């Protein structure tokens, strides 16, 4: 028996099959199975074509790989220095809590980190802003908050230098800003908990 070819099966799926093809399908379980397979394939392709990965997502994943992956170590161009914190010692040792701000400088850039309100879970959001001496409106890249162990948090930095990292657990982090091929590192970003204040 000659089975139906793929184009004939697609015609049947589209309701354009010949009467001979319809008759064969009624008699042939293999061809019916092949028809179901092709229906499934096109449904799956439709489903996947609805999803996409945009360039900003790919950039974040690239940064993740640079942070944690194998490959040559990249050295930062700037290491940020803390110049001001709204948290006075000794409270500073517990880390920034909700509403508190830390300001850093790194080369021609300043970085402000502010901790948002704690939610119902013991996590906070960390809101940042990077500004350049030149009042550059073309900031961008990705900011990563990396704990010694556990999940790296990544955020796009918009053209105004702003970024937002939700659901950050209390702890010690290294902050890294990747902008093109340039890197700024902020060591010892301490995020505290409102419960400790």
């Amino acid at each position, binding site marked *: 028996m000659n089975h139906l*070819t*793929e*184009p004939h099966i*697609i015609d049947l799926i589209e309701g354009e099959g010949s009467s001979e093809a319809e008759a064969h399908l009624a008699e042939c379980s293999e061809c019916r199975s092949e028809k179901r397979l092709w229906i499934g*394939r*096109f449904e*799956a*392709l*439709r*489903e*996947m*074509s*609805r*999803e*996409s*990965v945009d360039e900003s*997502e*790919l950039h*974040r*994943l*690239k940064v*993740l*790989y*640079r942070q*944690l*992956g*194998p*490959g*040559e170590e990249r050295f930062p161009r700037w290491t940020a220095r803390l110049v001001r914190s709204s948290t006075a010692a000794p409270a500073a040792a517990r880390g920034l809590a909700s509403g508190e701000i830390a300001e850093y400088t790194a080369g021609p850039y300043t970085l402000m980190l502010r901790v948002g309100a704690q939610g119902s*879970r013991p996590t906070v959001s960390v809101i940042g802003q990077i500004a350049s001496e030149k009042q550059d409106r073309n900031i961008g890249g990705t900011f990563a908050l990396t704990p010694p162990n556990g*999940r*790296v948090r*990544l955020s796009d930095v918009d053209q105004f230098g702003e970024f937002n990292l939700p659901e950050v657990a209390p702890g010690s982090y290294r902050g890294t800003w990747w902008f093109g091929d340039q890197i700024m590192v902020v060591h010892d970003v301490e995020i505290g908990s409102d419960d400790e204040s």
Partner: protein
Amino acid sequence: MSRHQHDWTADREKDQELVKACRKGHEEAWVTVWRRYGPLVKSVARRTGCDSEEARDVLQRVALVALQKLDGLRDPKKLASWLAGIARYQSLEMIRERRPAALLQEDSAVSDPRYDDEMVRAEDLARLRRAFAQLEERCQRLLHRLMLKQPPDSYQDVARDENLSATSIGPIRHRCVKRLGKLIVKLSRSDS
């Protein structure tokens, strides 16, 4: 691109070669993995019950787990189903963290019997996606417009845009589907 520089963006690269390259520090191979399987990961997340924003977060979580455990992937040919499995787990974790009540619903994705076939499905999808990507561009456009778009475009619209006669669209579509079928078979054989 120089003669000696490998183009990891070529869709013909097999998954096992991509995994090897990622393990050696080739950043472009890593990006190719996510261009290729990022939509699959998001598709799994959505099927598990995540919304579009959560699916983006799942993608990032899956990438982190994949990076941390890539050396432990015993069969790199199974990259697609491995990533789909991680995506399924991370999606459920996310829903558990953000909307725990959703997991108690009777029709939740957790109880979906299709989950048992998710890994197999992921491999089929990956092969299908690669086969589609290896079609010539005109075939990809035609099949997308006539069969994947909802609602599909008419033969007249496609013929006009492709500078073809409307009567030629049907036979061209046939050739493209036949070619897709052959590519699927070829990839199935080379994957096994």
